[in-house]
């Protein structure tokens, strides 16, 4: 588990920031992005995957959350 921060990028996408590993990358896909459910598996541009517990509503960004590493390239 690691503390991460998700924020909106200038281009309108989402970016993923993991301070401990200096990892800042765009999120290419998010499992749940509905009005009543947000979160799940996040796929990053570098090929890694992280899991965030789904929330009941889309949060106000940026947000710090705990994420689990599912699969990371390095």
């Amino acid at each position: 588990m690691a503390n991460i921060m998700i924020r909106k990028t200038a281009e309108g996408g989402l970016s993923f920031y993991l301070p401990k590993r200096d990892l800042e990358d765009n999120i290419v896909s998010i499992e749940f992005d509905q009005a009543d459910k947000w979160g799940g598996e996040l796929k990053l541009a570098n090929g890694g995957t992280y899991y965030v517990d789904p929330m009941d509503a889309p949060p106000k960004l940026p947000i710090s959350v705990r994420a689990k590493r599912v699969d990371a390239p390095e």
Partner: protein
Amino acid sequence: MSTLTREETESLIQEVLEVYPEKAKKDRAKHLAVNDQSIEQSKKCITSNRKSQPGVMTIRGCAYAGSRGVVWGPVKDMIHISHGPVGCGQYSRGGRRNYYVGATGVNTFAEINFTSDFQEKDIVFGGDKKLAKIMQEIEQLFPLHKGISVQSECPIGLIGDDIEAVSKKAAKEMNKVVVPVRCEGFRGVSQSLGHHIANDAIRDWVLSNRDGQHFESTPYDVTIIGDYNIGGDAWASRIFLEEMGLRVIAQWSGDGTIAEMENTPKAKLNLLHCYRSMNYISRHMEEKYGIPWMEYNFFGPTKIEESLRRIAAFFDDSIKEKCEAVIAKYKPMMQAVIDKYKPRLQGKKVMLYVGGLRPRHVIGAYEDLGMEVVGTGYEFAHGDDYDRTIKEMGNATLLYDDVTGFELEEFVKRIKPDLVGSGIKEKYIFQKMGIPFRQMHSWDYSGPYHGYDGFAIFARDMDMTLNNPCWGKQTPPWKKSADADEVKAAA
């Protein structure tokens, strides 16, 4: 000399690595790379923010240096106690020439060393009582101070003093801000963690102090974050932000005050210059207060124009108009500077090795003068800094992370740059090697280099160093060859 190709640069790295034992060689190889602009993630080519190898000579500082010297030190109306033995504080006071306005010793204190001067008995019995006493004395002797920060040196963490409790008690008694900072030097691999710890201390002890209080705000409130006012940098940046119609409500932390820091959450936009040392607090403010932040670069007219337009894009048309007016106003002045110095500096090659920001930020300024940066590297950068550097640097140029004294010397001998820009400790090595050198850590006691005014000084300084007649006088007259004499006679 001509630019190296990719293969030549790679073989240069291999050659330099040859002297190391197997294990050290394997480790150092990860920190040296040939730039490839097609790479998106720097992790694929360069490793950074790792512990230096024992036995090699690098120039890193410690977490205490990052917090006391860089982030907290320039906050002028606070007293920063170097809590621990006397040396750390003595060597980190005012050395970076963080200029400020005020009467030192009366209402500003940035140049004075305050220390608890630990002795053996303090290590054995603990230093909390001493710290409390120091704070009382400070309150009596310097009643105009606006707050105290306790900068821990290594022993504090080792003996487990409770500086938080002492600080809370003193804060209540004095009714001023007292910030305990757990920046013991042994934390982390370099000063970079000290920046982070200092940012976290600001977050926990300062930032929310004025939440809910009234503040006369305007829609154009911005802050300058991560500008330490070295030689007056922040002032040179501030004047044309104000000319653009923006109101700078806080400077972090060069010429900054604790009140400005407490007011920062009321800003509309945080302008971040040194990404490495203050991105943490900017990200926090974005999350907690919804203040957007942007990185900008005020080195050289090209980058200034780019940054000013991006800053103006956050605001309404009146700011955009004034932004264009500012750019137009300074353009002829900058053109005059370039016209004067570019012919003298055109085509010269530069190698840089500085802390955590300038190795990429000053590239634009050199390019404005027609110079080329052929190698760059950071003391304590992280992966995200190299992500940003790769795009700024030319293909097949050299990147070196936490370079050792030996490596940097060898690279310079082989690449033969016309100018080396690095820190205080490297200055005399290269000057004795006969290579022009500028100390880019605190601008070689010159400056400012930020902003339009700074660029003119930057260009003059580079010319003054590179075209100094002393570089042609390195061979003593009795060792000069007969040819040279004949040429002279003929002339």
